[in-house]
């Protein structure tokens, strides 16, 4: 039996089994992974490399194309006569001192400096030896050793050394001088002084040349728009040298890392790069470099304003955070100003943030805050609550003090111990004085309370007077659909059942106050129309339907007001909006004053306007019977509905004075987690369509507040309550922007704009201005378009264009603060003669009397002063009194043909003032500031563009201004500045002087 056969051996895996395939696969996998890892690391994770390479290429090309244009511009400037002249002067100046400079340089470079160097070297050798010995003295403990060392120093000081000193004449010759340490020191210091003298001589010699060089370079930089060729070359060189890599801003304190500029490379380039100048918009420069100048990206980063994921560099989507795993996606361009709100949350006007400003203004003037609290809006009512709380606390402290005082006095009276009794008396005295202080504080708070009570206003009109004010049958129609009656009304459309409309109407009707109105005869409608169109009503109100509508949108459109409002009530309201039917529930001094100001009209004028407005009605519209409004059962049911829909959020309603808001607080709505915004059944749709975001929620909700109810199975009262405001697309966008920015900021204080200096006054002022629509009549910021400026009469007729209310761009620099306060309190500037403008009586439009509290008057005054950097309190400038001669010259100038002052300015003579277009000089001294007046005389168009006051009344004569045109005899001898003289003359004018002028004229 063959043995081999018997031994059944397993096949040897070493020889028979091959793992080569597995190994190969593994090897391929491993190599592949390695390649992939390297590729991923180098390419995929770093897409910005391509951006940077492309940017370098495109930007170099762009700059190279730009360079010749800029060089040509520079050349053009160099060729200009003025530049040539300065260059020639410069050259001449340099030529004139060339030899002197060469001589000075020669004396310094070849004479003084070699000798100085040699002397210093020798001197330093000795001095270091001495210094070393001194150190040894200082560290030595042994008096004997110290005196040895001192001797050694003395020896060095007396040692005479030979020093090779080059001669100071620059000949290169060297002299060998034997010198002691002292000699050397003297030589060294002397040479140093000589060098300094030569240098200062050189500077002096070049003064004129340097001044001219500055002037020449100044000419270039002043005239050249954009960069110079040399600057472009610098940029190109930088570009060539710039390494490819991540560009990152890291702000430690807020742990912000922004790598945006790894791709957005053009953002901070000094050249303006348009959207497609470098082919791709990613490379454009920041569209608002002035914003970057005040928000340096090195200090603020990018994503702090724009949102998005500043760390991500992997892709556009990730960097911009526009995916569902990033909570705060980058704002879309139309909402970009949302980024301002988080740090500028104390403001209602942020210059430059016009969409955001529009959003805030809408929030204010559409009355959103009636239902939704938002910090800063309606702040007065919260402050009022706080003041009242403070008053209660103080009063109880006062009572407690009084009680303790009585106890202390008793104890003092009865205590057997003299010292103890004195202590009790002292304590009682202290408490009494404390209470005196508390009394003063209580008084201040009480004033504050009265101020605030005047300021707190609900958004809509009071409904306590509807019985006197409105036609009964109109009320349910209005409540049902206000926009049917008055499109665009601020009263929104609620989703009410017919029975709810009836119940609410009945409740409001039966709870309204009863009262008496004075009966008025009708007036002249035509005169009323003229008054309505020109007195100022249209600064806030509009009239005309559809395309015919003109006037302001701040207050109601009055096209159909005649259908609803009682004539006698209207007369009273127009004549004095603060006059109301006494309300037992509210003491008169705490009664809120209306927003509508007092136009200081006569009763007859008020009647005329009311007559005109009463005619504003569609042809007899019959309103259905509304006798249900008298049914007490209806009213009872109405209370629940009025509460449910939050009517008292915007209106004063009897019995509901203390009613709170029904909506959610929106102060931090933008940072509410997305899952807490109720997309309801729309969630899936929103995700699919890409609007499952704060932006999408706000936009859909504002466009149709009932949207997220769609498809829900709900009882009527469970449905969303928010009414429809029928907002336009731009309004929705502005409000969305505002709400997106309404976030609880995570930035520390130094990032937020919460100034405590004069800038806070500016912030505070804008709130009052926005709430009272000052910009309906006045232009306060450049670019403001007032309602007046849109009324055809004022745009089409050049004579009416002059009737526009004054611009207030630099009001703070113009007027004195105390005067401004009194003017704002009473624009008639008179307690008896009120049917007029105090300053510009020639204007048809009238500055109305607003029901400002003292607090608001102070804030407004401070606002104007702060905006123009005017110190408060104002210190009146000293004015040099006019000499007799100066007065006479002033009089001559004033009446000369070259200065037609009295042709336009009011003089107080009614026959002349009919044609006046400027204020009376008599109020100048108490109203104006002299330095402003001086500037106004010289260049009025820079202060009030479009003013009737002409420019170029004066011309330059040496260092003074003189009248352009024929100068009267006496004035020709006057050597002073004519504009200054006129300013002083004006400020020292009195009525006698004015009469005298008129006689002269």
């Amino acid at each position, binding site marked *: 039996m063959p043995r081999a056969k018997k031994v059944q051996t397993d096949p040897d895996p070493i020889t028979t089994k091959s793992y080569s*395939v597995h190994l*190969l*696969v593994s090897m*391929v*996998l491993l190599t*592949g*992974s390695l*390649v*992939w890892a390297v*590729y*991923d690391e180098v*390419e*995929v994770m770093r*897409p910005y490399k*391509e*951006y940077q390479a*492309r940017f370098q290429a495109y930007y170099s090309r762009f700059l190279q194309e730009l360079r010749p244009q800029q060089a040509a511009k520079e050349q053009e400037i160099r060729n200009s006569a003025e530049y040539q002249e300065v260059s020639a002067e410069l050259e001449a100046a340099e030529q004139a001192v060339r030899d002197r400079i060469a001589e000075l340089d020669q004396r310094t470079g070849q004479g003084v400096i070699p000798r100085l160097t040699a002397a210093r070297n020798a001197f330093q050798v000795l001095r270091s030896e001495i210094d070393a010995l001194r150190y040894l003295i200082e560290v030595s403990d042994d008096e004997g050793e110290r005196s040895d060392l001192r001797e050694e120093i003395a020896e060095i000081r007396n040692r005479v050394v030979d020093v090779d000193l080059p001669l100071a004449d620059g000949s290169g010759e060297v002299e060998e001088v034997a010198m002691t340490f002292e000699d050397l020191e003297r030589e060294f210091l002397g040479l140093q002084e000589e060098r300094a003298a030569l240098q200062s001589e050189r500077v002096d010699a070049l003064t004129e040349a340097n001044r001219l060089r500055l002037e020449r370079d100044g000419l270039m930089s002043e005239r050249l728009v954009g960069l110079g060729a040399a600057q472009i070359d610098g940029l190109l060189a930088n570009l060539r040298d710039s390494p490819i890599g991540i560009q990152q801003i890291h702000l430690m304190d807020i742990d912000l890392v922004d790598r945006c500029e790894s*791709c957005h490379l053009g953002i901070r380039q000094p050249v303006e790069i348009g959207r*497609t*100048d470098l*082919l*791709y*918009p*990613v490379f454009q420069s920041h569209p608002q470099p002035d914003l970057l100048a005040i928000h340096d990206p090195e200090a603020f980063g990018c994503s702090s304003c724009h949102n998005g994921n500043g760390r991500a560099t*992997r*892709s*556009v989507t990730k960097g911009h955070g526009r995916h569902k795993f990033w909570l705060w996606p980058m704002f879309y361009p139309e909402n970009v100003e949302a980024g301002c709100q988080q740090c500028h949350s104390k403001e209602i006007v942020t210059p430059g943030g016009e969409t955001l400003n529009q959003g805030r203004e809408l929030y204010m003037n559409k009355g959103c805050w009636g239902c939704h609290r938002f910090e800063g809006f309606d702040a007065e009512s919260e402050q009022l609550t706080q003041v009242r709380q403070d008053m209660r606390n103080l009063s109880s402290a006062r009572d407690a003090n009084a009680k303790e005082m009585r106890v202390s006095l008793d104890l003092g009276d009865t205590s057997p111990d003299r010292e103890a009794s004195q202590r009790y008396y002292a304590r009682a005295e202290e408490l009494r004085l404390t209470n005196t202080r508390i009394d003063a504080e209580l008084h201040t708070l009480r004033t504050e309370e009265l101020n605030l009570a005047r300021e707190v206003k609900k958004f809509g009109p009071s409904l306590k007077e509807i019985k006197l004010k409105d036609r009964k049958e109109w009320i349910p129609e209005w409540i049902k659909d206000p926009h049917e009656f008055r499109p665009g009304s601020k009263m929104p459309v609620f989703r009410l059942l017919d029975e709810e409309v009836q119940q609410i109407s009945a409740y409001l009707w039966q709870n309204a106050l009863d009262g008496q109105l004075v009966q008025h005869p009708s007036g002249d409608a035509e005169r009323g129309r003229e008054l309505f169109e020109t007195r100022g009503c249209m600064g806030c109100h509009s009239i005309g339907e559809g395309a015919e509508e003109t006037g302001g949108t701040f207050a109601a459109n009055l096209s159909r007001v005649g259908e609803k409002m009682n004539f006698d009530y209207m007369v009273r309201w127009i004549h004095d909006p603060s006059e109301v039917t006494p309300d037992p529930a509210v003491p008169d001094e705490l009664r809120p004053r209306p927003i509508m100001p007092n136009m200081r009209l006569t009763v007859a004028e008020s009647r005329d306007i009311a007559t005109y407005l009463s005619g504003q009605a569609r042809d007899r519209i019959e309103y259905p019977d509304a006798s249900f409004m008298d049914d007490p059962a209806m009213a009872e049911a109405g209370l629940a509905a009025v509460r449910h829909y939050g009517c008292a959020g915007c209106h004063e309603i009897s019995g509901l004075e203390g009613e709170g808001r029904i909506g959610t607080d929106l102060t931090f709505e933008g940072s509410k987690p997305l899952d807490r915004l109720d997309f309801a059944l729309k969630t899936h749709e929103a995700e699919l369509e890409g609007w499952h975001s704060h932006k999408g929620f706000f936009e859909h909700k504002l466009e149709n507040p009932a949207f997220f109810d769609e498809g829900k199975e709900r009882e009527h009262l469970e449905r969303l309550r928010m009414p429809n405001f029928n907002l336009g697309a731009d309004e929705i966008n502005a409000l969305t922007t505002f709400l997106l920015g309404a976030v609880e900021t995570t930035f520390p204080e130094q990032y937020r704009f919460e100034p405590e200096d004069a800038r806070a006054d500016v912030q505070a002022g804008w709130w009052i201005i926005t709430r009272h629509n000052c910009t309906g009549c006045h232009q306060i910021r450049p670019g403001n378009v007032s309602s007046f400026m849109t009324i055809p009469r004022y*745009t089409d007729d*050049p*004579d009416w*264009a*002059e009737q526009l209310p004054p611009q207030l761009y630099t009001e703070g620099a113009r007027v004195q603060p105390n005067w401004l306060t009194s003017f704002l309190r009473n624009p008639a500037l008179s307690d008896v003669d009120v049917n007029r403008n105090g300053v510009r009586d020639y204007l048809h439009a009238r500055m109305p009397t607003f029901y400002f509290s003292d607090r608001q008057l102070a804030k407004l005054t401070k606002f104007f002063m702060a905006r123009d950097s005017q110190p408060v309190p104002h210190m009146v400038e000293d004015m040099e009194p006019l000499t007799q001669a100066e007065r006479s010259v002033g009089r001559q100038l004033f009446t000369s*043909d*070259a*200065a*037609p002052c009295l*042709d*336009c300015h009011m003089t107080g003579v009614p026959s*002349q003032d009919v*044609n006046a*277009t400027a204020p009376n000089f008599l109020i100048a001294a108490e109203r104006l500031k002299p330095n402003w007046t001086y500037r106004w005389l010289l260049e*009025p*168009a820079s202060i009030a*563009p*479009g*003013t*009737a*006051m*002409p*420019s*170029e*009344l004066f011309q330059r004569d040496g260092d003074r201004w003189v009248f*352009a*045109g*024929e100068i009267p005899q006496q004035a020709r001898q006057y050597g002073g500045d004519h504009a200054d003289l006129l300013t002083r003359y004006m400020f020292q004018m009195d009525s006698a002087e004015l009469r005298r002028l008129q006689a002269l004229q």
Partner: protein
Amino acid sequence: MFNRNQWILLLAPVAVLALVFACGGDDYFDEYDSRAGGQAAAPAGGEPVAEMVTVDPATAATLLGAVTFSGDAPRFPPINMSAEPDCVALHGGRVPSDRVVVNDGMLQHALVWVSKGLEGKRFPVRDDLVNLDQDGCIYKPHVVAVQMGQPINITNSDPTTHNVHPLPRENREWNKSQTSGAPAIEYAFPRAEMKIAVKCNIHPWMQAYIHVLEHPYFAVTDAEGKFEISNLPPGSYTLQAVHEQLGEQEMEITVGASERQQVDFAFTG
């Protein structure tokens, strides 16, 4: 050498890797190119520059005609200069209003211009001297028309100070004082704009209108209501007559080479 499964085993990772490579990176540039339709590759230039037209005098046409007015003209009270004795002294008596001037049925101060048909064309700026004088405390003439860039020479022939205050909407506004005998103010409006009112604030009755047009084809009617527009390239145009108080009238016209065409406008009260 390898069976099927082994091939799959071998190729799968390669395929996966290839896929990763293909999808890796940021494709902003490709995406932008495809969205912008290759626009990025060839950036669009600025606005097309209007072509500068040289008119051939051999074929140029002339429009001439008159503007008539019939019916009751709007009545304006005579000018009351009593506020400025200097001005009153310059006139013998009553100064009629210059708002609407009709002489024997012919309307003065109407602008006639080519309102359509010359779009996209540029013409050299006219070089005739246009004067606006303040004479007798009224503007003479009451209406002036210039091409944009063409200077207006504003003078004061009165013994009193005026201020010249144009109230444009498109152009820059300015307001300069001009004393008696002061040098002329020369100003060229850089932008086309119709009906720029000019006021003197010192003498509020003074009013003039300046029309600034893009091209040189316009004329203002004279005291006889006549106008002439010459050197017009042949073609079809809309001709418009404008009077700031009476409104506008339009007419379609076609002129042939070297044609002298008569065009009349008739306003009625």
